[in-house]
């Protein structure tokens, strides 16, 4: 167990190192000059060069990268070019909002997805099953900004049930959480449906019936726990999917999380913020997968961590 954990953490650090390198390379290659952005259009070439030297942007690539990594080891993500604040502070300030949204979205997608999938499997090939599967297909294929704007229009503008955007109350949370959650709902309901159908045909479900157990008990005690096993690994992967969604959804709903922060930073080529947000997101994805793998043996006794 401990050996497994240590090895996995080691692997995770390697993955993060790789991600930092790839991101750094990409940002280095961006055909725009951060120093020019900071200095403004009217600034002289000399001012721009000064800023560049000040930020260390005139150094060769490998020196810049190694310096970045060195700072990273001390927990220093650098300073924002434009906001003149520590990136770590910016991310820290915005993290609670994103975590709240993430949690709410996961709750939405698990409740909706697992229920829809289970109902569809139990009513297999009925009209209800087909309707639910069409619904899940729509939620998977619709782009999130379209879903977000649609929900805003119907529930905030027309019905006025929820505020148009912003942060603070539970009502503010509902629409962005549902927007992100709907995509996951589609995936989870499809997975849950096929997993349930698979489990319903297993010999041990027949054994449960032969024991004289009731239908509800069979579904809750014998079918559902087995059907959910493949989905646990999915939740870990899902966090990655989620991170790609927040940039769009937080911008649509004006949600003050790290997605919005990233969106603003990308527009202004504020490299330290982009790097910081990317690394923090990567940490979440790696952590999500690690947790999913650690939880798996608790739910499925056949899995042993080695």
């Amino acid at each position, binding site marked *: 167990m401990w050996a497994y954990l240590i*090895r996995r953490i080691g692997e995770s650090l390697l993955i993060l190192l790789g991600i930092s390198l790839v991101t750094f390379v990409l940002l280095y290659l961006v055909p725009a000059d951060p120093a020019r952005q900071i200095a403004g259009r009217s600034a002289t070439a000399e001012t721009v060069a000064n800023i560049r030297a000040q930020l260390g942007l005139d150094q060769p690539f490998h020196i810049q990268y190694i310096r970045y990594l060195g700072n990273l080891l001390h927990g220093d993500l650098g300073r924002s070019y434009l906001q003149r604040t520590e990136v770590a502070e910016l991310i820290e300030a915005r993290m609670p909002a994103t975590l709240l949204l993430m949690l709410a979205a996961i709750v939405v997608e698990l409740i909706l997805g697992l229920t829809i999938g289970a109902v569809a499997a139990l009513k297999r090939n009925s009209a209800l099953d087909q309707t639910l599967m069409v619904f899940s297909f729509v939620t998977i294929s619709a782009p999130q900004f379209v879903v977000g704007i649609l929900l805003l229009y119907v529930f905030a503008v027309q019905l006025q049930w929820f505020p148009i955007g912003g942060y603070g109350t539970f009502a503010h949370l509902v629409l962005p959480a549902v927007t992100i959650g709907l995509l996951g709902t589609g995936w989870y309901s499809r997975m849950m449906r096929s997993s349930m159908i698979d489990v319903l045909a297993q010999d041990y479900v027949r054994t449960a019936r032969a024991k004289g157990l009731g239908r509800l008990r069979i579904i809750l005690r014998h079918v559902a726990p087995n059907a959910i096993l493949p989905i646990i690994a999915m939740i870990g992967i899902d966090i990655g999917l989620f991170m790609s969604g927040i940039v769009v959804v937080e911008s649509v709903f004006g949600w003050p999380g790290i997605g919005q922060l990233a969106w603003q930073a990308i527009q202004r080529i504020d490299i330290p913020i982009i790097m910081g947000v990317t690394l923090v997101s990567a940490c979440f994805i790696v952590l999500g997968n690690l947790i999913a793998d650690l939880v798996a043996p608790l739910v*499925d006794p056949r899995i042993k961590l*080695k």
Partner: protein
Amino acid sequence: MTAEENSGRAAPRPVLTVSGLSVQVATPEGAKTVVEDLSFTLNHGETLCLAGESGSGKSMTALAIMGLLPYPMARISAGSIRLADGTELAGASERALRKVRAMRISMIFQEPMTSLNPVMTIGRQLSEVLLEHKVCTRAEAPGRALELLRDVQITEAEKRLGQYPHELSGGMRQRVMIAIALACSPEILIADEPTTALDVTVQAEVLELIRALQREHGTTVLMITHDMGVVAEMADRVIVLRNGRQEEAAPVRTLFAAPETPYARELLDAVPRIGEAPARPAPDRVRHTVDVEDLSVRFPMRGGILNRVTAQLHAVEGVDFRIAPGETLALVGESGCGKSTIGKALLSLVPWQGSIRIDGQQMAGLSPRALKPIRRNVQMVFQDPGASLDARMTVGKQVAEPLVVHGLASGSELQDRVEWLFRRVGLPPDHMDRFPHEFSGGQRQRICIARALALRPKAIVADESVSALDVSVQARVLDLLRELQEEEGLAYLFISHDMAVIDQVADRVAVMNLGQIVETGSRDQVLRDPQHSYTRRLLSAVPIPDPTHLRPPVLPREGPVGSPVRPLGEDVTRFAMQEIAPGHWVADRAA
């Protein structure tokens, strides 16, 4: 013995009456009747066997009684199933059936590996049935579960309560199934092929357990089996089924002594019996098609922070054997003994060490490219013909594929060669364009044999090749294999757990335990005059298809079971072999 008891007892008391039962299954071609107008009475305390080949409707009958027919594909279309007190089960509501299941009729299934919930402890699966039917209180349940496990003679019963199914062997799982089935003391136990998936030694133990529990509790047993050896051992009365209809019903001794219907006679004649196979001509042993020396197969087991190899599973350890052209060497042993691994090593499907020479050519240390032409000389026929054929490729293409891969034929020559192969295995060549699902199990195995023959191999590894087939089909496939062997001078490595089949086909036999050969010699030496305790134990467990012959109890295992896993660097002690008669080698007892 129970037959005599029955006749001495008062008039038989029926506990279950099935009359005019028909079961229909929905197929794309419309409703198909799989059980037709079946009637029988099950009497208190007896064992009634429903015997028949696949598709005879025997399992469907059992499921119909339990109300467990796969919904909505199958349904009872006519007839009645009545318990002694008049309760009608055919067409009963799920609610009514739930009261009957486990309380009055229980069932155990063929696959103990998959019949238990993998994520629930054994203890909970046992107490669940007790609590559902309110046989005991929640507080009493664990104690009662433990008693039930002790009743089915499971070792370390307390420990088992907290374990999960995957931690138990197949035999233990079937014991747990029996414990669950008998938890609420039902009148009737339906056993659907309860030992088919188990090793012969475990089978004997489980059958003995069922008999003992039956004596103790007076349970009536309805046993479903295809194995006439099991029928002879267990049944008081037998109903032979064929295509969903009753072919013959008789007390077991009458049936075996004088079957009335031609089908029952055919079925009994097809059953292989140890010691009845004729002697085989001695093959020419001047040269060897297969020559294996000091073969070892070890699988690494990883662990630790760096996931390094910490131990090894010694699947095969220092095995030597030779097979001459036209000769059959049979490998026997319980599951996990390494016999299939040897077969795979001959085809280089697993990494191996040692020396394997096929037709004089050494395979050790060759690159995959150099190996390719030698590999052609040895081909394999697997156990499950359904799973070893590609469902989406025509059978003609699959038989042709080896020829194409090795670039041996193309165009009309390929076509001719495949046609010839189809005829050779007794299939009409115009079936080449069909897909595997359009064939029966026996025909599929013939296709697999044709595919194996395509490259004109010198040796064939037959890994449980006839185990999944019905006895009558099995006999015909064995005939085909023998015919091919005689004509082509093929060397066979015949891997099987079925002693009676081995008795029919083998020239020589090698018995394996824990990756090593413990006894080897000619068929007569090993099967008629076994010397090693392990061989004797295996043979003592084989059910004999003769109800007048009482099989003595299975010999106990000598010493602990042992494990083929060793920490890195530690070697397995190799058995020292002694030649006790010309060609008859036995491992030291001490080993």
